[in-house]
């Protein structure tokens, strides 16, 4: 028996044993980490709780009071507001701009990474600089531009203009990201394909597309998320509440006098946030790598 006890007393960890101050430091660390978790979770929790609280009318009641679990606000959201069409609009815009961005960027990224052509460096530089101009430097023009295009193509809706703005605006940054990614892949594969007689288009289709797929997926994902997050452009461009995206639509719930309803906003926010949060948590590694690869490393 004595032998066994001795074994239990053995210090087996490869970390040094904690000193007194070490214990206090560790406790402090836990305190801070847990504290910050509360700071994050409390407001979000309030949103979740209040969206299920049937004991509220137009205003949120967060300071305690009677709690009545109900789906009232969700019902209101679906029956009384245009929430579903906002969701539809947002998804349509998001998918269309993601696809269009991919179409543009997969070609430009390939061209800038694999070819040395006249005007390459200067155009890269100017892309880089134009990118820093805030997206809505052109808000005055977007409206008129849409009128001009719609004049010759009547089917051209405001939403399509929005899609064009999102995807054209994303060309510059995403070209950089894809170019950086392709640069990190050796050209041996392309060279081999060329020696075997592939044309440029075939190299693009058979070699570049498959190896760039992870990065293209990330680019598509970011372009897809963009319209969910953006409030400004839909607000400026879309005039009809029915054609709003989620961000612009939900804002009417806390800003318009007629359909003012804070709890419904909380419910709508919750419904919108949940799928996006799940996506972020699952794909966080990919999303972050996409971000850091895009920057020109110092």
């Amino acid at each position: 028996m004595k032998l066994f006890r001795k074994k239990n007393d053995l210090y087996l960890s490869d970390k040094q044993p904690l000193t007194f101050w070490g214990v206090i430091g560790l406790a402090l660390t836990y305190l801070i980490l847990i504290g910050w978790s509360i700071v994050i979770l409390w407001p979000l929790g309030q949103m979740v709780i209040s969206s299920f609280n049937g004991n509220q009318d137009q205003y949120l009641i967060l300071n305690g009071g009677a709690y009545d679990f109900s789906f009232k606000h969700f019902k209101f959201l679906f029956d009384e507001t245009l929430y579903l069409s906002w969701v539809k609009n947002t998804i349509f815009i998001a998918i269309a701009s993601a696809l269009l961005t991919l179409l543009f960027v997969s070609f430009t990224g390939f061209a800038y990474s694999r070819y040395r052509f006249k005007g390459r460096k200067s155009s890269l530089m100017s892309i880089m600089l134009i990118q820093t101009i805030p997206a809505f430097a052109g808000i005055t023009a977007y409206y008129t531009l849409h009128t001009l295009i719609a004049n010759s193509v009547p089917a051209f809706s405001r939403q399509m203009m929005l899609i064009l703005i999102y995807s054209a605006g994303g060309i510059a940054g995403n070209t950089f990201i894809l170019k950086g990614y392709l640069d990190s892949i050796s050209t041996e594969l392309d060279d081999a394909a060329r020696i075997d007689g592939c044309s440029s288009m075939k190299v693009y289709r058979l070699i570049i597309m498959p190896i760039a797929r992870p990065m293209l997926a990330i680019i598509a994902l970011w372009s897809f998320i963009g319209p969910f997050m953006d409030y400004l452009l839909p607000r400026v461009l879309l005039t009809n509440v029915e054609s709003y995206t989620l961000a612009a639509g939900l804002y009417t719930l806390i800003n318009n006098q007629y359909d003012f309803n804070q709890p419904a906003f909380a419910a709508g926010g919750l419904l919108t946030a949940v799928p996006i949060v799940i996506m972020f948590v699952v794909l966080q590694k990919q999303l972050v790598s996409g971000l850091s690869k895009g920057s020109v490393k110092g």
Partner: protein
Amino acid sequence: MAIYQEFLYDDIGNTYERKNLYFKEVSKLQESIKSATPEQKSAVKAELKELKRNKNKHSYNVELHSFKENEKIFLKELREKTKSMKASLKGKHSRRVTILKTKQYRFQLKENFYQPFKDLTYDNVLIFEEAKIKSEQLKHTIIQVEENEKALESAKKELHSFDEVYNAKKKDELKVLKAFEKEKFNKAKQALKEKKKSGLISEKALSNGIVELKKQRKENIVVQYYDIPKHAAKEKIKSYRYQLRKGTQRELSVIESNVADVRRKTPTEVSKTIPVNAFLTFWLPGLGQVLNGQWIKSILFFVMSAFAYFVAIPYALGYSNFQGKGIAGLISLAEGGKKLDRSLIFMIEGIIAIFLIIFTVVILVIAFKDVLSVEKKKIKGVRPKNWFETKTAVFEEGFPYLVSLPALVAIVFIVLVPIATAILLSFTNMDPNHQNKFEWIGLANYKLIALGEGIAGGPFWNILGWTLIWTIFATSLAIAIGFGLAILANNERIKAKTFFRAVYLLPWAVPAFITIMFFSIMFSRNGILTGYLNNIFNFDTPIAVKDNPFWSRVTLISLQGWLGSAYVFLLSTGVLQAIPADLYEAAQIDGATAWQKLRKITLPIVLFQTAPLLVGQYTFNFNNFSIIYLFNGGGPFNPSKYGNLAGSTDLLISYIFKLTTQYDYQAIGAAITIVISLGLMLFAFIGFKNSKAFKEEKL
């Protein structure tokens, strides 16, 4: 005086003797003039003059002339002969073979005709060589095509006359095999699953194994499937058809590339010595290509000409505009126009017209350069490329331009036109009193901003000050929180890391507009957080956060700290985890304290790697419109300091938004946009210039 060089050259600089003896003599005399003594010079010159006067009587030219007559007759005969050949072949062979045979016949006749005249001109050499290659190689192609056709016929026959009994028997066999294979597959799959259960193989190995089994099963079935005569015949027909279509195409393109080889080695000889066509035809892209004998290329350029002359130039002149007057409208800005005419539309259409003109100029320059280079080469002796060669060049060398074209067009119309509009707008007086019609007023807007005068320009400096304070404090706070948490959470003794990381991700993952709006509700006059704030600080008179400039600002900065820290946390955690542990071990052995390790190892590595992204965070916050606008609409208002248009938490970007969309001071808004864009560009440019990637020219 036209100067002829003595030799001809091809693309890679090989020299060739001239075949045109008249030119040869002229060039020899011209050479000798250069080296002649003054006395001899006049004699040689006279000789040259004599030669030129008797150009048509020169023996070579006489011969050439008679050959041309002969050639004319021959070509006429050739046409008739091929026609009759075609007629005689018709009905006996399939369409494909008929065409190929006629072609072969024609080239054979050509070969025979041109052979004796090979020494006369290089053109004849080329025609002869081409005819020779084609007539010879087409023979092979025809044989192959005929063989394939025969095989196809027999396969078709097979399809109609297979042994029904045998077919049925084979079909039954297939059924039996299918059942057997299914059973075998299921058994093997079961066995694999057993293995997995007992822990012998991994999940991955299991799924791979199943895929392999499936493939095997399919293969076995397919083999049996093609044993059935009917299916076999069908498959054969398919394959021969493919052979006929694609195989023949490939053969023909091989022949074309053989001819191209000869072309490249055969120079051309022209009588002109100055590239005049390029200068005469620069105004109509496509015409010069026709004169150079490049037909298909010319069609492409004519299409571009059509764009220039039927779209771009009319538009720039004001035709088919929506309202404007093309470029002229840019100057007049609808001054004196109809009541409904809007200056803004005139301006934008003018800008579009300018971009269209730029496109046109680019097209003209490309076409001109193309004609000029081809013509110059032609004079040197290089033969212009035919379509087969041009095609490859365009698709290989022009590839990056070709595929970037859609992106370029999108960027020009969606990004550049609006930016150009903003730039031009900043030089006008578009304000509430001049919405429909406005005029150029030069730099007045910039002056207003610089001096901080006027209703709209007044608060500029105050807002800029707050914007800078906001940018620095909000971003630094977010970075400090995010980085601090990342270091704390990276401690190896901390348990439940996954939980903390998932929670800290949330502010980034939840769409910002939702959290901002929700915080905005909680900080409203009776909001829960306003209540807490009053309880904590116990103010004499309870404050309302959104009505108090100071507390609004503090709240906004803390809120951005809350929102932005998640992103920084994520980035620095990634970097922290990638730092090799031996660095710390080495430091430990050398007796470093925790603080020293942090300062000398962790901080430099993390900061160095995330620097560009952190700088990006500063620019992001400089332009962080949504948090300001959605939280309190830029409020609270403070007319004594900020005038009637801006609130005390307005950033430049949200101020611009208000000026443009709410108060109709578009011109001043544009001017401010230009100022901050220039500032940000300079910022980005400096950062970019200093980056390693740029210095190493790796771009």
